[in-house]
């Protein structure tokens, strides 16, 4: 696979809904070996983590009430939340830096709909995505 083919597979995975890395493994695998290739890539990506996480899930079910474990996890969760906020800030910076365009308004509307109003994601998506895509279509 050339760098260009890699970039195209990556772009397609970003474009599709659902877990991007999972999509990428399917796109990547199918380029090499069609359906069997996709299946092998998917199993290779998900198999080992699934085993590990299932063990962790069992341990959590057994020991999740332990005070020490609970404390450690809450510290990690607080850090993970901060990490995600930093990711959002990095993504938002270029979008909000441009002169007036529709993108920040769409992003803020999606945020309010999901985080504040607690509307179901599919409704928010169906309400906003067509508007946002229409803006992108006519902007060019």
């Amino acid at each position: 696979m050339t760098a260009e083919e890699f970039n195209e597979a990556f772009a397609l995975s970003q474009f599709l809904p659902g877990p991007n890395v999972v999509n990428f493994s399917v796109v990547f695998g199918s380029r090499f070996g069609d359906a069997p290739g996709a299946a092998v890539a998917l199993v290779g990506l998900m198999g080992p983590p699934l085993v590990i996480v299932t063990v962790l899930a069992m341990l959590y079910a057994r020991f999740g009430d332990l005070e020490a474990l609970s404390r450690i996890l809450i510290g990690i969760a607080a850090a993970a939340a901060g990490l995600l906020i930093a990711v959002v800030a990095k993504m938002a910076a270029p979008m909000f830096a441009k002169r007036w365009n529709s993108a920040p308004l769409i992003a803020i509307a999606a945020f309010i709909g999901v985080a504040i109003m607690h509307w179901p994601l599919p409704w928010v998506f169906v309400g906003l995505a067509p508007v946002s895509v229409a803006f992108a279509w006519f902007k060019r």
Partner: protein
Amino acid sequence: MTDSPLITLAGYFALLSLFAVGGANAAIPEMHRIAVDVMHWMNDRQFADMFAIAQMSPGPNIIIVTLIGYHVAGFAGAAVATGAMCGPTCVVAFFAARTWDRFKDARWRISIQAGLVPVSLGLIGASAFVLARAADNNVYSGVLTAVTVVVAFNTRINPLWLFAAGGLLGLSGWL
């Protein structure tokens, strides 16, 4: 929906997988809404715990659905939730990969891709908000989150160091 938690898991996660533009991080608020607010499978704290475990685990972050599934219905729940979250989009990805060359330069495709970026940014922002509310239950954990934002925004530090620091602070009883 019926009473069977497996069918509920399958239905919710299969639907969610098709609307999660931006991947696992965009899907967090909807998972939280379903697992905590609608189905009452777990509380805020348990959801934050599972997010933390998924972040620490190797592999894609979407693996949080495996934890939620196991919590709800054991091994069968873990398998069903993971399959529902990955199955539909894998099928879409497989067929899209075959036709991609034909439409990759089409105006409609470029418009859709550009149009979905702000939507997914808003969704990931909502994820961050939901998680911070679930994880930060006092001033100290709020400060830890804020410090992590500053460090992660301004440096290229490996996130595992931040998780380690957070875990140690938690263990020491500061949070």
